[in-house]
Structure formats: structure tokens, C-alpha cells
């Protein structure tokens, strides 16, 4: 067992984990962040995408111990519970860019990351930028539209910027029993 400290969606969690534990399993099974889902285990589908210190990663391909000391933003941290949606979330809803919703957390997080790198992507840049995220329901057409809409909304200041890495200082601390 190894002791790790994580900041997840603004809350600090200190846990003992087995070295082989994947970040996604740690998030889901230990911390209860089940909004981040598992689609493939082999980093092909991107359903488990989260931001690690602001950069998108597939959390099935990161060990929990590798995330020690870092800040994780999951889909659940993108908007306050019950609060206003992030522009990417809103655009996915308005453009009907989701059906079953299983790929959606990862697709939204990957889109947030893409727009942080490239605030005004072309169609081709969106398609290339998100091709590591698979969706079996939508045929992607409305996802491309949603990302364009989100880019426009964010350029207009219509919503929050991509989430900042939560401050490390004094978040609520929660010890999780092993």
C-alpha cells in the first residue's frame, strides 16, 4: 500500500492504495466519483477521460499512485451540483450531442481540454482532437456542432473558462478509511 494525496474536484483525499490500482478505479470505487465511467480498459475509448493538473488523461491508463499530489477534475467537478452548466455541457445538451450518455463524461472532458488548447478549432481540428474518444450512439455529427457552439460561447464570455486547477490551499480534507 502506498499513501497518496489527491485533490479531486476541489476536495482533498488521502488514501492508501495498492500500486496496481488504476486512477479510474480509485476515483470510482474509493472516492465514489462514479460519473467517470470505464469503457474499454485499454485507453481506446476515452470514456474515462479526466483532467490531471488541467491536462486530459484517460484515467484507465494512469495508476492512482502516478496522480499523487495532483489535482483531478472529473465531469462532476465541471459545474457546481445544481449550478449553471459549463458551456461545453450546455452545448452538448442543446445540440443533442449525447444519447445514452455513457461516453459523454469523457467526451465533454476531452472537449474542455481541446478548447483550452485551441479556443477556435475547425471541423477537422475537432475531429482530430477528439478521435481518441469513441461514441457508438451519435455518429459524432452533433458532437462536432456542440464543440463549435461551446467555443463560440466561451469566446463571447458566455460561460466560465475551462476549469482552473483547483487551488491546493486548504480544501476540505476527507480521510477515507481503508
Amino acid at each position: 500500500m502506498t499513501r497518496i494525496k489527491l485533490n479531486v474536484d476541489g476536495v482533498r483525499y488521502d488514501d492508501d492504495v495498492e500500486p496496481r490500482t488504476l486512477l479510474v478505479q480509485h476515483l470510482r470505487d474509493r472516492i465514489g466519483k462514479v460519473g467517470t465511467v470505464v469503457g474499454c480498459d485499454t485507453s481506446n475509448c476515452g470514456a474515462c477521460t479526466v483532467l490531471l493538473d488541467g491536462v486530459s488523461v484517460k484515467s484507465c491508463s494512469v495508476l492512482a499512485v502516478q496522480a499523487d499530489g495532483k489535482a483531478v477534475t472529473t465531469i462532476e467537478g465541471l459545474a457546481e451540483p445544481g449550478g449553471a452548466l459549463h458551456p461545453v455541457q450546455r452545448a452538448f445538451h442543446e445540440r443533442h450531442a449525447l444519447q445514452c450518455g455513457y461516453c459523454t463524461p469523457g467526451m465533454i472532458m476531452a472537449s474542455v481540454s481541446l478548447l483550452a488548447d485551441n479556443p477556435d478549432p475547425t471541423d477537422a481540428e475537432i475531429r482530430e482532437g477528439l478521435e481518441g474518444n469513441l461514441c457508438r450512439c451519435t455518429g459524432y455529427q452533433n458532437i462536432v456542432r456542440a464543440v463549435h457552439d461551446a467555443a463560440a460561447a466561451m469566446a463571447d464570455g458566455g460561460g466560465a473558462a475551462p476549469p482552473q486547477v483547483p487551488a491546493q490551499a486548504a480544501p476540505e480534507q476527507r480521510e477515507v478509511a481503508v
Partner: protein
Amino acid sequence: MAQRAGGDDSEFTRRAADGGSAPSRREDARLVRGAGCFVADLLPEDCLEVVFVSSPVAHGEMGAVDVDDARRMPGVAAVWSAADLPAVPQTPPMLGITASAGRAWPALAVDRVRYVGQPVAIVLAADRYVAEDARDAVRLDISPLPVLLDPTDAAGSEVELFLGMPNVAVEKEYGDPIDPAVWRDAAVVVEGNYRQQLLAHTSMEARAILIRPEDDDGLTVWCSHQAPHRLRGDLAAALGLPEERIRVVVPDVGGAFGGKSETYPEYLAVAVAARRLGRTVRWVEDRAEALTGPPHGRGQNQRTRMAADADGRILAYELTIDADVGGYPHLGAFVPLNTSVMAAGAYQIPRVHVQTRCVVTNTAPTSPYRGAGRPEAATAIERTVDTLARRLGMDPAKLRQRNFIRPDALPYRTPTGFQYDSGDYPAALALAMRTVDYDGWRAQQAQRRRTGTGAPLGIGICSYLERSGNAWEFGSVEACPDGTYLALSGCCSTGQGHETSFPQVVASVLGVEPELIRLVEADTAIVPRGIGSYSSRSMQTGGAALHRAAGALMEQARGRAAESWAVPIEEVTYRAGTVSAGQRRVSLADLAAATGPLRADEVFEPPQAAPYGTYIAVVEVEPELGTVSVLRLVAVDDYGVVINHVIVRGQSYGSIAQGLGQALYEQVRYDPDGVPETRSLLDYLIPTLSEVPPVTLREMCTPNPNTALGAKGAGEAGCIGAPAAVINAVVDALDLDDPSAIQMPLTPFACWQARQPALAGAGR
């Protein structure tokens, strides 16, 4: 309003009333926040995780299963093979298919294994990692037997996959045998051999089930499923429990596509474990298991023969199917029967004859996969029609127009016994041709061929006709005392947005705001009966049942008011949630509060419907590498009355992407020993954002004449129309004389190989 989308708005050639409004989806409120609840998101305390030890051998005689080391590992709660169970439940036969008699599919393998991945032992531990460690410590002793992987080979093999029984599990014939004189005397006869490759459903959420034993010896089951009442009935039958002791709840489902409508051996094993241990138990399938199957989709060897006169009038069509149902005939044995019944497509063909065999093999068992027999039928006849056009030297569009069933000939009964309801098949083709600029592309193709410049260009048409819905569905609407309405449906959304579209249906009848209507489905403790969601049936059948229930509620309210006011019912009128007679007026809410529950239950069974349309693909094939680029894809669909255009169009896009996947990329592959080679999404290629081209959708609307709602089926058309359009375009681009020379998926290598004779012949 229908969604604005750059350059491809819908066009409604015949617009039905009330088809246009499209409130945004209620489901999204939780799903975009990561607050959806899939089976694996349920985190009950004290739950055991299940991992299965599965057969690495495709066909073999089982020796002892050594579970001793695995049982001794710390944290392991139980490890059982079939030998450890007092009784091994078997999956019940489905839809009255008798093929499983004597070929029952056990919860854990007994004596023999018949496909790689078949569960042999179940491992339970509090921690999934520990369960997987224990799985790896189980030792199997399996003596390999000869392996059969192709249904035609298996049908003729002396190797018996079930001792003393034929490998052909079902044999059926549709239409009358065609007189040899028809073939002999026809001006033209063409033939084709087509392979419908095995596919993996690849819902982003794989299978998952969680079972909690209850104090009354019953079970509560949470399952990612399409048909909760079917699952309840099957579990009850397999376990010998009364149905009322089992409650099935389907939470959010991460896609299904036909693969979650069955009762699998794993579910039975999980139920047995939960009961034996008295513990909550869950199994969450991983991707490798999901790709290895079961279920697989498709899997047919098809032979076609078509005769026509010199003017291109089709005289006869013959289709012979050897369908792969895998190691155990299950719901997959139903699929080729669907293909058979709708074999003739949208054409008026005087003689149609279909012979179908469902054959057991050593691949994983098959199930319906989006389209479920319909894409197989459409591809067979549409490739054959194109071959006929080439032979006649006739434009394939013109040949189709010559043979379509005319609108005034509808309703029309095919020689295979399926009645088409309504539509305008020639108009769908004409609209698709206009939209894609068919003549323009043909001119460009001619110019490229003439000048020998540019990549080979092809235009492919698929005029499909499908068969949607089946059986009855339950719908109920209740006026609640708080002014809201509760709608219950026996359907089960797996991403289709029922929470949004079904309230729209009820609201349109009651004349109230959709926000006042709440839908509950997918819980057998609340919804008394139901069938589920598959065969494009939700709106066609379930929506129609709710439509009728809402109407019945209005009548019930009028009757109740007439009674309490002591006036004739004719004097009571209903309007927008209230009933009135003269000066008296009461809301349904107050009426229910004053006089007792107001609720109408309906069970409605409309006939199957026949949605149809035409897809046209324009492709280029890169001559050196064989890579196919889809330049344009136009889809014209007539789903009857559409309730929510945003949702239906979304499904069209998704279904088309899956159709492109079958045409170009996807195939479950086995090595010669029957070991699956496509075990991850690195090997099994579903389309990504980069592969799916922009698609243009056009809609027509011919209401379903058999329901007041008027909806036909939607959701599967893209899988049906896209593959044949793409493959016909590629055959056209490559100018192939033998259409059987190329089979799906149209990988670069397949195209390059098929191209070789053409290259040599053209001297290029």
C-alpha cells in the same frame, strides 16, 4: 423546432400534423453532469464482484475444473464450476424458437465447451482485482475437438456440435420454389455470393448486472437491459421462482443495439451466486469479454439469384441463407427469419423464394444487432439489383424505378408473406437523387473514366425497406391529484430519450404541457407488464399504446364527471386537463382527488410497419492503397409521423455511423482454432470522429395507417441503408464484373485486391 444544422435541414415532403416540435431532452440534465446512474455506478455496501473463468478453447471436452488454489486466496468468497452446483440453470428458449431444445445454454459449461469465452467457473470476491487474481489461478482441463467456424461448412460437416443432433438448428422456407423454366427463359439471370461478417455490438457500456437476494427468497435485479419483463420471466423460469418474487430494474443504459435483449448464462450464474451466498453480487463485463462475445451480430452466408426480362423487369428473386448462430442457438436464430420475410425489399417481384438455415458453429452465440436481419436482406437484394443493372447496361436508379411497388399498389403483400403498409418508394429515390445531385456525379464519373484522371469514383444506391415493431406493448396514463400525470410504458430506453418523447405523445393528446407528464418505465415493480425496446418498436408500438391510454383517460374522466354530475356523457367535454358540462367544470386532478384514481391502462398490438427510404453514397477509392473515402452520403427516410425530430435525426446519424462501420471497418475475426483475434478496440475498429463523413438527412412522412399516432419505426434505418449504398458505390468505382469478388468490410486491402483485375484489364 427541428434543429438547425448547417446545410442539411430536414425537408418534409408530406408533413403530418404535430410532427415538428422537439423539446430538448430531459435525460441530459443528469447525463451531462456525470450524474447518470449505470449499473456499475450502484455501489451497494458489502457487494461481491464476479469474474468468470471462461473457456480458452472453442470446442472441447471438459475434464475437471481445479478451483482449489483459487478458493484459498485471501479475499475470495467462492469459486464454483458447474460440478459445484446442485443444479445448473439453462437459458430459456426465446420467442418460441425451438432450436434450443436439446441445445440448451447452461449458466456454466457442463461436459463440453462450444465457444471461446463460454463461462466455465464463477469467482466471487469483495475486490475485483482479487477476483481476477483468483480467476487466473483456476486450472482447466479441456481436450480440444474439431472446430467449425463457418455456417455453410458446419451445415455439411460430420462433426456434431451437439451429439446426435444436426448442426442445422432451424430450417425454413418462404415463398414457393421457383419454376426452373423461369431461370431458363429469362433474358438475364444474375447471381451473387455475399458474406455478412460477424460484428460486435460495442455499446460503450458493456453488459452489467447486480442482484440482491431478498428476504422472501426473491431477487431484486438491476441490469443493463432492453426488455426488463422478458428478463424477469426468463430468470423466473430458469431459477424455478414465481415471477412476482423477482423485481427487475433497468437504470441508465449505456447503449444496447440488440445485444441487451437476452438472458445470458452469466446472468443466471450471478443469480445463483447471490442466492447461495445470500449476498449482493454484481458482474460488470469488461471490453475484452464484450468483444469476444456473446453476443455477436450478423453472420450470414448469402446466395442470391435474380431473373429479369430484357427491359429490366424483375421476374424472380431467390435468396439462400446460411446463418451463423454460434455455439448455442439463442435469439440470433430469430434474426435470419427477419431477413427472409423482408427479402424482396421495395420491389414488385412476382416470384420470391427464400431458404434459410440457422447453423450452430463454434463462434460466440449471435443475437440481434441494430437492424437485426434487415441490413442483411437489404444488402443482398440491393447488391443483386446493382449487378442486374450492370448486366443490362442500365442505370441502377432507372432499374429501381422500373421495379418499385407503386404507391397505389399499397398495402402490398409480398410472396414471402409480409404486408407493406404505406409509402412512396419512387419518391424517396427521386428525393435522394436530387439531394445528392446524382446526374452531376454520374457526369463526373464519366469524365474521369473517359480521361483516365482522378481516383475511381463510384455512386451507390440502396433503396431499403424494413419491418419494424412486433407484438403488443403496455401503456398507462394516470391523472394525479397534484395536477401532474404519470405515464407508464413497458418499453425500456437505452439512450433513445423516452423520458422526453413519450411525455410529448401524452401531452399532445391531453392538450397539456409536456412538463406535467412524468414517465416511468423499466421497473417491473411499477410497470405491470411490458415487452421492451428493440425492432425500432418504442414509438411505433409503445408510443401508440400511450397515445391510446391518454385518449382512454379522457373518456374515463368524462364518464366519471357525467356520473357525479348526473348528466349524459355526451354533455361532458374534455379540454386541456379539465372536463366541463354547462357551467360545471373540474380539473382531472380535482376529479381524481374527489372521486378516486383516474387511470387508463392500454395494451396495444398494431401490425408491423414498413418504414423505407433510399440512401446514396458517393465514394472515391484511392487506386494505389485501396482506401475508400465517402464523399457524400444522403439518407432519405420515411419513419411515418415523427414525434421528436431532434431525437430521431440523432438516431439516424448514429445508425448511419454503425452502418458505415459494417461497410468499411468492423469484423469479428477468429483464428483457425476459433480463438477471437479482435479482443480490444485496437483490433475491432468502430468508426471514430475522423472516419464518419458529414451526412445529409432528408425526411418524408407517410403516416402509419394502422395506428392513430402514425409513427413507424425509427432508429435502425442507417444500419440498413448505409452498408449497401457504400458497397454498391465501391463496386461501381472499381467497375467490378464479379460483385462477389468483394465482401464487407471494405478494408483498403479488400479493395486493393478486388481492384487488381481491373487495373490489369484497364492497362493502367
